[in-house]
């Protein structure tokens, strides 16, 4: 199981694209590492501005994914925290339509 999908062939065994099949991921996992980015140049000026935090999350389904976390800083964040994916509004495209982005957030204890 890979994310993002390796459209050109399998990185494990070299299987051809037509031998690979899409599979749904639950979007939950464990925080493996994180870094709050303090210096970031976004030339368009419309994208994400620093500070923001990037996390490496090992999904329960297998793959480890790097994603932007919903909280801008790493306050209260610990390696091993349970994380889940959320869709977050992230500005608008050139036609004025809302863009959503998949980010990850820390699960509350009750979950």
């Amino acid at each position, binding site marked *: 199981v*890979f*994310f*993002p*999908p*390796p*459209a*050109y062939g399998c*990185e*494990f065994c070299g299987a051809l694209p037509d031998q690979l099949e899409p599979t749904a991921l639950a979007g939950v996992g*464990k925080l*493996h*590492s*994180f*870094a*709050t*980015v*303090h*210096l*970031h140049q976004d030339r368009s000026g419309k*994208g*994400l501005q620093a500070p*923001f935090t*990037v996390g*490496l999350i*090992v999904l*329960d389904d*297998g*793959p*480890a*994914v*790097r*994603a*932007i976390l919903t909280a801008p800083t790493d306050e209260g964040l610990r*390696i091993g925290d349970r994380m889940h994916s959320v869709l977050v509004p992230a500005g608008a495209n050139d036609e004025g339509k809302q863009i959503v*982005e*998949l*980010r990850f957030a820390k699960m509350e204890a009750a979950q």
Partner: protein
Amino acid sequence: MKKTIRDMRPVYVVGIGLHKYQHMSDTTFVTLGLTAVREALRDAGIEYGAVESAYTGTGLIGLAVSRPILRHLGASGIPMAQVENASASGSTAFRHACLDVASGVSDVSLAIGVDKPAMLSAAAGKTNIRDLVGARVVPFTHFALLANEYMNRYGVKPEQVAAVAVKNNRNGARNPYAQRQKAVTLEEVMAGPSISGSLTRLQCCPVGEGAAAVIVASADAITKLGIDRSRAVKVIASVTRTARLSRRQEFRC
């Protein structure tokens, strides 16, 4: 059977040269490269005419960098090739120069590393395979994530990682070719500004320009050219590896 450099004909480093690493300036890549190569030739005590092949490691200068530099030493018609291998360009150029001599194809080979800052994007960003972070993870954040993982796994504190920068800057202060020439204290490194994760400005390498050159030769060439044998350094190994699986897929729960 598969061989390593150690199993082949012995290869020796017989001369080295550098151009100072510095902030981007009007200095052309030709001057950067020639300064390093001329110093390496002087160090080896040989003429450029004795060089039988050349490998130029560079990432950002452009296509076919070797000849615009080396023709000013007297165009001798030798084979030249450019090696682009990101941060490993210079060391990969060195490896190929060593393989040239070890295999017996050349008796004397030249490896150059030269670069100037320029905006050029990595091929991995043009594959149409899109991840969730894109250009928002630049190299310093890639390394900040690795540092965070390492610190957690081995119980290392940010101060201990910062001590590496103290050591590196201390070495730089003693090296006339280093871009950062000033020794710094742990407090100065830790004071920031923060760049990414626990990494502060002084823990990130400066962007700049410079060049280095290495001449490697066979034992035959050392004898034939009258090179000082006591200064020749034998190459025991020069290896290139790549990840067996993308880092992000390595974890299995």
